[in-house]
């Protein structure tokens, strides 16, 4: 219910929507519908390229959507000022709010696809929204770059791309660290009703632990509505494992950290990138020493990361977070794609995105590589100490 939405019922009318969308967009690769992007189907870059950002601007997960928006704004500023796509070529972004609701995401995506001026879309951050619109994107043939949305069923066809790696792909460093620290036993505390954490907690983390000779001595599942972790904390304290892998949503994490301390547990806790963006700050001292792997951190030292961190600080006067990095890298990926294919039509961008993916790039998240259309990053393991992240090692 954290992903609370007032109107979850409704639908993405995939089949029909797709038919009409295609009709309305009048063969954007044919190139005669007069749209700013569509008229370049034969190659070439339009003067103005419009990218639609269809993400949560309001609602319970707005931190991800608004964060990505800020990152993308910074990227656009750089791209336009640099003249990256040639003199006078500018990228514009149009924000559409999904408001935390699946059917609204489908509806806004549909609008963006039906608008011939939209060349590409930065897609929803929530897995369930993304999985719903992914088939729609395939039929509507609009290149869509998702950020976050780490579950299965998102990158499912030639038109779907993901700029943020799924969490399990960069979680290994956390277990490497635990192994190095000499941990032998580990407890897993996870939110089993949150798709990403269910996957990680039930399959990936136990598998990674086994590879490293760590024994999972406890696996405690909770649900989205669980608020009090006194019981689980005491169960963990009683078992007293060397480490705890904690896979919980933001408010749950704060409570669990506090109550683990209260219960007298003193081992190492490893959490997730949900704790980034200051989401663990409310736990105060109790969160000191917490480690978590992130795709991006202000503490990262890769060239692209440092440049982004500084530029973001300058533009917004605050520290960048992983959601900012998402939007930044997604927008730059699209710009690089247009440059690579020399074609700002939808088909051109799709080809460009694939091309850039095959080569990889250096962005806010460091050196990004790809598995198909799905990003992979080295990530970084950070430690939370007195209100700031520091790199581990």
């Amino acid at each position, binding site marked *: 219910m954290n992903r609370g939405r007032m109107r979850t019922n409704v*639908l993405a*009318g*995939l089949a*029909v929507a797709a038919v009409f969308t295609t009709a309305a967009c009048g063969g954007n690769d044919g190139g005669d519908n007069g749209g700013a992007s569509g008229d370049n189907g034969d190659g070439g870059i339009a003067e103005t390229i419009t990218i639609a950002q269809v993400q949560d601007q309001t609602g319970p997960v707005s931190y991800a959507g608004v964060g990505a928006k800020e990152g993308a704004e910074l990227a656009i500023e750089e791209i336009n000022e640099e003249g990256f796509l040639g003199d006078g070529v500018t990228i514009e972004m149009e924000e559409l709010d999904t*408001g935390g609701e699946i059917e609204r995401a489908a509806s806004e995506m*549909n609008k963006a696809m039906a608008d011939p001026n939209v060349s590409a879309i930065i897609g929803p951050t929530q897995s369930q929204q993304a999985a719903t619109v992914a*088939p729609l994107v395939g039929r509507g043939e609009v290149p869509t770059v998702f950020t976050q949305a780490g579950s*299965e069923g998102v990158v499912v066809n030639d038109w779907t791309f993901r700029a943020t790696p799924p969490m399990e792909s960069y979680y290994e460093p956390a277990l490497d660290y635990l192994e190095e620290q000499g941990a032998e036993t580990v407890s897993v505390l996870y939110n089993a009703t949150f798709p990403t954490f269910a996957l990680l907690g039930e399959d990936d983390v136990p598998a990674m632990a086994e590879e490293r000779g760590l024994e999972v001595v406890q696996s405690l599942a909770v*649900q989205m509505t669980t608020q009090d972790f006194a019981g689980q904390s005491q169960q963990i304290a009683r078992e007293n494992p060397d480490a705890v892998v904690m896979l919980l949503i933001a408010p749950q994490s704060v409570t669990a950290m506090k109550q683990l301390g209260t219960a007298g547990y003193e081992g190492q806790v490893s959490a997730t990138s949900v704790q980034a963006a200051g989401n663990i700050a409310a736990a105060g001292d109790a969160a000191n020493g917490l480690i978590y792997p992130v795709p991006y951190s202000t503490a990262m030292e890769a060239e692209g990361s440092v440049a982004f961190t500084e530029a973001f600080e300058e533009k917004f006067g605050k520290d960048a977070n992983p959601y900012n990095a998402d939007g930044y890298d997604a927008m730059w990926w699209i710009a690089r794609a247009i440059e690579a294919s020399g074609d700002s039509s939808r088909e051109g961008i799709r080809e460009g995105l694939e091309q850039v993916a095959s080569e990889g790039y250096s962005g806010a998240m460091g050196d990004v590589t790809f598995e198909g259309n799905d990003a992979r990053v080295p990530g970084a393991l950070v430690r939370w100490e007195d209100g700031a992240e520091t790199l581990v090692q």
Partner: protein
Amino acid sequence: MSTWYAMNVVLVQTTLTTLLLALSIQVPLRFGVFSFAGVGAFGIGGYGSAIAMVHLGWSTWPAVAFGAVVAGLVVFLLGLVVQRLTGLYMGMATIAFTLIVSVLAVNGGDLTGGAMGLYGALGEISVLQILLVVLLVVALLHLTELGGMGRRVDAVRDDPELANALGVDVVRYRQFSFLVSGLIGGLAGAITTLLRSTITPAEVNFHLVILALTAIVVGGSRSWVGALIGAVIFVWLPTWIGFLAEWERVAYGVIVAVAAIYLPLGVLGVAKDLWHRFRTREERARVAALAKES
């Protein structure tokens, strides 16, 4: 037209399925039963149809029918079990039922896809087909609002003792309302799921109850027309007040509260009132005109 339609086709579909969902709550309410089992039926119908498609390989409409029938039967049986309960105690029991459906989906393993839900149940459903289904449902419900049947339903709701005395089998009527609620809710869930190809446990929750209830009360709770008005309002509201951006949700709250305070019979009540006044004025004008002529 076609551009507008292409941009808003999802909203059109949403309106129709929201109408079905709202009706699944409204039907028992019209029979004097405070049951939210329709939302549980939505979940059962959604999962039923998705399972039929993904695991059994059925085609679209048999899968929809399967989901709706299973939901109808389950909710009917629920109705038999909880028929002693009254008022909000009934409401609580049926909400419990709905939440349990969601928990079963989380723990359903491969059958339900666990927390991630079921993917890939993409049916072939056109807006016209949904429209036909909705028209059929609405036409049947309309019959229960007319004439003797309508009066009997009103009696079952407003004065069950009197209804019993008049020879109306209140218990039987109420059991029937559970069956209908389950079928319609199941239909809504099945169509929704197969349109968007996925269903997840998180969707079958209390917010859906609130959506359906708000739509009915704001639209008008006594007739399917009210449910339609409510569905239209709440599906399209974000489009209409989208310009408010961050304050959209505040506006939503204000609109719902103001409607609850000032529209005792919902928007439908106001519309009827205006229509009535308009008619009377027209009538007067005609009489006046006749008087003048003569």
